[in-house]
C-alpha cells in the first residue's frame, strides 16, 4: 500500500516537472515552470500576468532587468486567448497612462509581432516617475479586450543621474575652442555680457579652418543643456544669418537659470563635419 502511494505520488511529481514550457518563443529570462491561472497558463516565472477585463485574453509581460524606469523602455508580451492558445495576428496597442496625473505620454509605443503569441513593445516612454498603468488593448477577429498592468512606483532612471554630476575643477570656460577633431576653430561673443539669465539674446560666431582661414557658407546647428539638471535649453536658438567673413549670427539664445551650461555646435563645412563644445558658468 505504502509503495503504491509512493509510486503514485512519484508519478504525479514527475508528471508536473516534465510539463513543457514554450521554449522556442520569447526571451530566455525567467524560469520555465508553467502555472495555471484559471483558463490561462503563465509561462515565465518572473513575468507579470494579467487577464483582460472581460476574461477573453491573458497577457504575460516580461520586462528587462531594472524594470520600468522613466525614459524609453522596451518589453515583451505573450498573449493567449481563453482556450490557452497563442493569439497570433492580433492588433495590439499599448497605452501608458498616469491615473493620478491624468496624462499619458507623447508618442505611442511600437508593437511588433514576433510569432507564437509573442509581441515586442518598444518606445514605451514614461515621462516622469510615479504611478503608471500600461493598458494593453488586444483586438482579433472583431474580439477586443484590454488588460491593465499597474506599476505603482516607477523610478527615475539613475543611469543618467544628473544630480551626481559635479562641476569639474578648472572648468574650461574659453570662448574659443577647436572642434573635437581639430577641423574647425570656433569662437563666440554674446550680445549681452555678462551672460544674462532669462533674457533672450543673440551671439556672434566666428568660424575658421584650423589654419585660421575664415569659413563662409557653413551649416551650423547648436544644442545645449545643464549637465547637472538635464532639462535642455528653454528655447531653440538658430544660426539665422551668415554675416560673411566667417561670422554668423545666432539668435534666440536663452539661459533659464544660473550654473553650469554646456553648448554644443555641430558644424558642416567644405564636406567636413565636426562638433565644438563650450562650457558656460552663469552667475545670478
Amino acid at each position, binding site marked *: 500500500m505504502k509503495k503504491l502511494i509512493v509510486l503514485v505520488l512519484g508519478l504525479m511529481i514527475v508528471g508536473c516537472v516534465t510539463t513543457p514550457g514554450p521554449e522556442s518563443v520569447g526571451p530566455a529570462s525567467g524560469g520555465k515552470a508553467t502555472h495555471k491561472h484559471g483558463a490561462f497558463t503563465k509561462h515565465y516565472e518572473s513575468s507579470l500576468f494579467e487577464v483582460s477585463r472581460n476574461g477573453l485574453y491573458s497577457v504575460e509581460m516580461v520586462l528587462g532587468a531594472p524594470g520600468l524606469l522613466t525614459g524609453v523602455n522596451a518589453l515583451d508580451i505573450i498573449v493567449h486567448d481563453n482556450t490557452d492558445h497563442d493569439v497570433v495576428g492580433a492588433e495590439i496597442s499599448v497605452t501608458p497612462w498616469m491615473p493620478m496625473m491624468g496624462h499619458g505620454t*507623447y508618442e505611442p509605443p511600437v508593437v511588433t509581432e514576433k510569432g507564437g503569441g509573442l509581441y515586442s513593445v518598444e518606445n514605451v516612454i514614461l515621462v516622469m516617475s510615479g504611478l503608471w498603468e500600461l493598458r494593453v488593448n488586444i483586438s482579433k477577429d472583431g474580439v477586443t479586450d484590454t488588460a491593465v498592468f499597474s506599476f505603482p512606483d516607477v523610478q527615475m532612471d539613475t543611469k543618467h543621474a544628473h544630480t551626481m554630476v559635479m562641476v569639474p575643477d578648472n572648468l574650461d570656460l574659453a570662448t574659443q575652442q577647436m572642434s573635437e577633431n581639430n577641423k574647425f576653430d570656433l569662437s563666440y561673443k554674446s550680445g549681452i555680457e555678462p551672460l544674462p539669465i532669462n533674457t533672450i539674446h543673440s551671439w556672434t560666431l566666428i568660424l575658421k579652418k584650423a589654419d585660421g582661414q575664415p569659413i563662409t557658407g557653413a551649416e551650423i546647428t547648436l544644442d545645449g543643456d545643464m549637465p547637472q539638471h538635464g532639462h*535642455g535649453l*528653454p528655447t531653440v536658438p538658430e544660426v539665422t544669418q551668415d554675416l560673411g567673413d566667417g561670422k554668423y549670427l545666432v539668435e534666440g539664445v536663452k539661459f533659464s537659470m544660473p550654473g553650469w551650461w554646456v553648448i554644443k555646435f555641430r558644424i558642416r563645412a567644405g564636406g567636413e563635419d565636426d562638433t565644438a563644445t563650450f562650457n558656460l558658468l552663469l552667475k545670478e
Partner: protein
Amino acid sequence: MIKRVPSIFALLLLTMLFFSGIAQCMDLHNWTDKQKSVLKSLWLESLPHLPADPTNKYVSQPEAISFGKELFFDDRLSGNLKVSCSTCHPENMNFADNLPLAHGMGTTSRRSMPLIGMGYNTWLFWDGRKDSLWAQALGPFESSVEHGFTRTQCVSVILENYKDEYERIFGPLPAFMKRDLPPLAKPSLDEPSALKAWIILSPEKRQQITTVYANMGKAIAAFVRTIMPTPSRFDHYVEAVMADDSAGMLANLSNDEVKGLRLFIGKAKCTNCHTGPLFTNGQFHNTGVPQRQGTPPDNGRSEAIAKVLADEFNCYSQYSDAQHSDCVNLRFIDTATYKYIGAFKTPTLRNVAERAPYMHAGQIPTLRKVLEFYRDLPPGKRPADLEHGALNDMELLQLEAFLRTLSSPLKYAQ
C-alpha cells in the same frame, strides 16, 4: 574667597556668552563676495526698467493707463454685471484672490495668478498660452466661467460709456449699427451659437470689432504693467549689506530670517527657479504637484505651446503692433512638448506670504506645506533641478520666515 570666585567666574562667563552671541549674530550677517552678488541679483534695485512691449504701442501712454484702469474695475464687462478683472484680482488683496480655483461667473480650473511685475513676463498664464499682457487680458472676457462675455458686448459697453476716452487714445471708432453688434457673438469653439452669430458678420465688421477689443486689452495691459512691488524688508536688508551697514542689517532681518535667506540661496537651492528681483525665471517646470481631484487633466505648458502659436492676438497677429522681427520669443519657442507635460510657470515670490493657497490649482494650502512638499519629494521622484540638501523642520521654519520678508505694499497707477 570662595564666594567671590563664582561671581567673577559667572561674570566672565556671561561676558563671553554676550560677545559670542554678538559674534554669532554678526557672523550671520557676514557675506562673502559671491553671496553678495547673489543678494544683489535678488534686490529690487537690480530690476531693470520695464522693457517696452513691441506688440503694444500704448503701454506708456497715461491716457491708456487710466482708461485701462477704469476697464479693470468695470463689472459691466460681464454677463451678470458682477465680474470685473478685480473680481479675481482684488485691489485690496494684492490683486490675487484667496480661492484655490478662481471664480467669476463659474468656477475655473486654475488659481488666479499674482499681478506683480507682469510687464517682465514673456509668457502669461500658468501655462504660458499668451505671449503678451494684452492678449492675456482679453482671455477672461470671453471665457464662460470668468466674465461670460463677448467681444461684441465689450464694444457695445465702450460705445455707450467710454467713446470719448477710447477715441482720444485709439482714434475714431467705426460706425457700428446695432445689428453689427449682436450680443452673443464670438469666435468660440465652446459655444457654437455664439460662433455662428460671429461668422455671419462680414469679415470687415469682424476685424473692426476685434480691433476695438484688442485695443481694450492693450489699455488694460498698460494699467496692469504699472503694478509693481515696493522695497520689502529683504530689500532694505540688501541695501544695508551693499553699504556695509551692520546696524541696518540687524534692523531689517531677524536671525531666523537671515538663516532662512542663507538656506534660500544656499542649501535649499531655491534660486534655481526663483531667481532675479522678481524671484522667478518665468520658465515652466513640472514639480510633481499632484492634480487637484475633480478637475479635468491639466497638462500645463505642453498643451499651451500650440495655443500660443495659434493665438489670435499673438506677436505675429494683425492686431499686434510689433514688426515680425520683434517676435523672437515665438520664433525660437521650444516646441518639444514632451518636456513640458504637467509643467507650469514659476510664479513670483514677492508677496508670496499673502497669497495662500499655492500652486496652479491651489493644491497646497499654506506656505509651510509648500516647503514640506518640496522637502519631502523623494530623490527618485524629483527632477534634477529640484535637488536640494537635507532640510530639517527648524530650517523650514527659517525659510518660511525669510519668505515672509518678501512682502511689501504694491504700487500702481493711481
